[in-house]
């Protein structure tokens, strides 16, 4: 009888433990806490309504829709940042600046020689593809510095971090092009007749692509192996430099997509503020996902949830009238708590504490 009871106890404790041990636990727990907080404070937070927008057709609106919509760029960047972190053991801090470049390239192609084009001078797809190529070249530049010149990722990407916004301004002769064709706005807002914001679909497409890539190629195995032990990866026939390089190029592609959404939202660009500080949020998403910033193993889903947590937090804070100047301070507090909680050393200490508080459990375990 008693042994039976201990067994069930143990298995229950073990299940709870294994859930807590899961890497994905922290971002999900953070998300649940935010949801719970909003539920208690003001359940109307979750209201979703179908309202006509300024173009006169019905679209979904509400905080949740806004979170999912606004998080798009961050989620897409988090995908690339997770890969870069895993393989190179460092982070790319230039993504905000390269988004400015990507956006600038798109506007340049679409506007042609005019700064205020009433009609698009090129198909949007062409502009997007050119933007992809340019962004991947900048990714390749960063990747070359990191992989072949062995410069620390943060230092290497500091170059584009510093120069990117100037390059973006230079691409358009420091003018601010505006696109008046409403069709271009579809990608960052709504397609007429569809009530869900378009960036949500783009994000889903990106997530599907990366999921397929992780399933049907060895991207995960290779970048993890390179991040954990480049020496032994090389002796097993992997080219560590090439893998690091590729992850930066992939991040470049993510930057292109994020930049495309960003400029489409406004149909214009402000070089100095577009996607400002987004690199820090992207790195934070990776960290919130419980991924080691020193490289190695990664969990893509956790990073993606991490990105949504950040946006959820931002939207919640805005709702409670925290001004945009103060918002970073609040965010910082939450981030400190989350990051400290997910630190291995704290988890270990908590484990010890639990053992001390419930010594009986430990004994029963040993007995079994």
């Amino acid at each position: 009888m008693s042994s039976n009871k201990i067994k069930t106890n143990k298995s229950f404790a073990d299940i709870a433990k294994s859930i807590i041990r899961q890497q994905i636990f922290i971002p999900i727990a953070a998300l649940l806490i935010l949801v719970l907080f909003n539920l208690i404070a003001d359940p109307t937070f979750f209201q979703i309504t179908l309202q006509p927008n300024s173009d006169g057709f019905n679209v979904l609106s509400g905080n949740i829709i806004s979170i999912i919509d606004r998080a798009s760029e961050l989620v897409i960047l988090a995908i690339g940042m997770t890969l870069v972190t895993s393989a190179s053991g460092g982070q790319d801090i230039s993504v905000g600046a390269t988004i400015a470049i990507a956006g600038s390239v798109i506007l340049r192609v679409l506007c042609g020689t005019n700064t205020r084009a009433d009609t698009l001078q090129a198909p949007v797809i062409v502009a997007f593809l050119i933007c992809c190529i340019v962004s991947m070249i900048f990714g390749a530049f960063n990747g070359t510095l990191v992989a072949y010149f062995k410069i620390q990722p943060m230092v290497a990407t500091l170059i584009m971090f510093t120069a990117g916004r100037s390059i973006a301004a230079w691409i358009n002769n420091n003018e601010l092009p505006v696109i008046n064709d409403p069709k271009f706005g579809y990608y960052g807002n709504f397609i007429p007749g569809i009530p869900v914001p378009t960036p949500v679909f783009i994000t889903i497409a990106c997530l599907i692509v990366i999921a397929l890539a992780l399933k049907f190629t060895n991207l995960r195995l290779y970048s993890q192996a390179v991040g954990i032990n480049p020496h032994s990866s090389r002796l097993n026939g992997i080219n560590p430099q090439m893998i690091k390089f590729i992850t930066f190029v992939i991040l470049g592609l993510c930057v292109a997509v994020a930049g495309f959404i960003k400029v489409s939202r406004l149909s214009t660009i402000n070089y100095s503020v577009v996607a400002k500080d987004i690199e820090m949020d992207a790195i934070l998403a990776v960290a919130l996902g419980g991924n080691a910033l020193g490289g190695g193993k990664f969990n893509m889903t956790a990073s993606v949830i991490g990105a949504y947590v950040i946006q959820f937090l931002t939207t919640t804070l805005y709702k409670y009238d925290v001004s945009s100047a103060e918002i970073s301070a609040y965010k910082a507090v939450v981030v400190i708590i989350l990051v400290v909680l997910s630190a291995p050393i704290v988890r270990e200490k908590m484990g010890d504490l639990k053992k001390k508080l419930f010594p009986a459990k430990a004994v029963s375990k040993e007995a079994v």
Partner: protein
Amino acid sequence: MEKNSVLEMRGICKYFPGVRALEQVDFTLREGEIHALMGENGAGKSTLIKVLTGVYHKDGGEVYIKGSSKPVVIRSPQDAQNIGISTVYQEITLCPNLTVAENMYIGRTKGHFTNWKKINADAGRLLDELGIPAIPAQQLGSCSIAVQQMIAIARAVDMNCKVLILDEPTSSLDEQEVAKLFKLMTGLKKKGVGIIFVTHFLEQVYEVCDRITVLRDGKLVGEYVIEDLPRVQLVSKMLGKDFDDMADIKSDSDSKQIDYGSTPVYECRQLDGTTGIKPFDFAIHKGEVNGFTGLLGSGRSECVRAIFGADKVNGGEVLIDGKPVKINKPLDAMKHGISYLPEDRKRDGIVGDLSVRDNIILALQVMKGFFKPISRAQAEQFADEYIKLLNIKTASSETPVKSLSGGNQQKVILARWLLANPSYLILDEPTRGIDIGTKVEIQKLVLKLASEGKSVTFISSEIDEMIRTCSRLVVLRDGKVVGELKGDELTQNKIMATIAGGES
């Protein structure tokens, strides 16, 4: 204390959990002598040095130093320095971005102000005196490694040292640089400094040293005057095999029938590695087990690394099954059916955080290519198969490989390369640091693989193991192939004589 000794260590003991690193070791250093401390890996040389320099605290024994009647207590490297014991390590521990003079006096200036003029002048005088070709105001990084090494010595000497410990100072120097260093050492010796010289190079020991102390398995083997200890004797003392009355161990395996007339599975001609080995010829036939032997640092690992393309190769021809091929990187070698289990398991072998399963499939996966991942189910099946076959003790195939014991980690890497199904398998020290049972298992496995028609290169520091498994041995000394032994020549005596070379 003997009257001319500067340092005496008596009955030194040091225990680590589960290991007796030093057991009742005595060591005496006399004034103005260069004393070699010899022993294979794990013999206790570095532990003894670390006890002496205060990095480790001894668990027993006493240390006496000249000028004090009582035993001295060394609690930290700072203590050691204060009583006149200085160490120069293999890796230069100075700051390359500071000047020569700054490096010599850093951390030794008193008070808050520093008279750089005086320091530069002092440094200049000392450099002159010791004949070191460097300028005080020069940046250390711009000096050659040998000069940096000498500056480290100058720094040590200037701190009034009576005992100077040189830990593998010559391993990254070329011949001329070594000669310069030896000149400096002899100069210091004349000044009455006692020098402890730790090295793997036999030639160098016989060139400069006066006395030799040999350690083995944490115990003192003995102290010898250099003239009384011929090289062969030294090697046999280090390896722990009595040279004369050693029973020759017969090979377990039956007559090894290898067709030496056939086309070799692998052959290289004048393969020129970039890691300090001389160009060498080598060939291996189907079903053959051969070995590379030599003391540590003799270049045996460098040879097989060159074969596998792990290090850059400058020139030479490689033939696989008689056809010329190019092997520039590990993947080339893998595609030609060569596998390599590296010597340094932690650094080059395992991918620590990855699961046992991922570690096992890694090589096969890489050979299949980036766009052809092995399915989860298939990987699971491979992993389970090899966990069973090699009897790998792991909680599951999901367990991170770093949490396994050394022997089991080694088996995981073996599994990885067996799964890749090579025709030529190179095993560099597969039995190092693992328990006896696993060692035997691995040797049996090697013989089994050979009987299945695979060619194997088996390297081990333990000569018995090599004799038991190999049918041919390539002997290296100081980066050169100095002999090849097979058949009846495979006896401990003959092997050791060839390893030692010289006047044997």
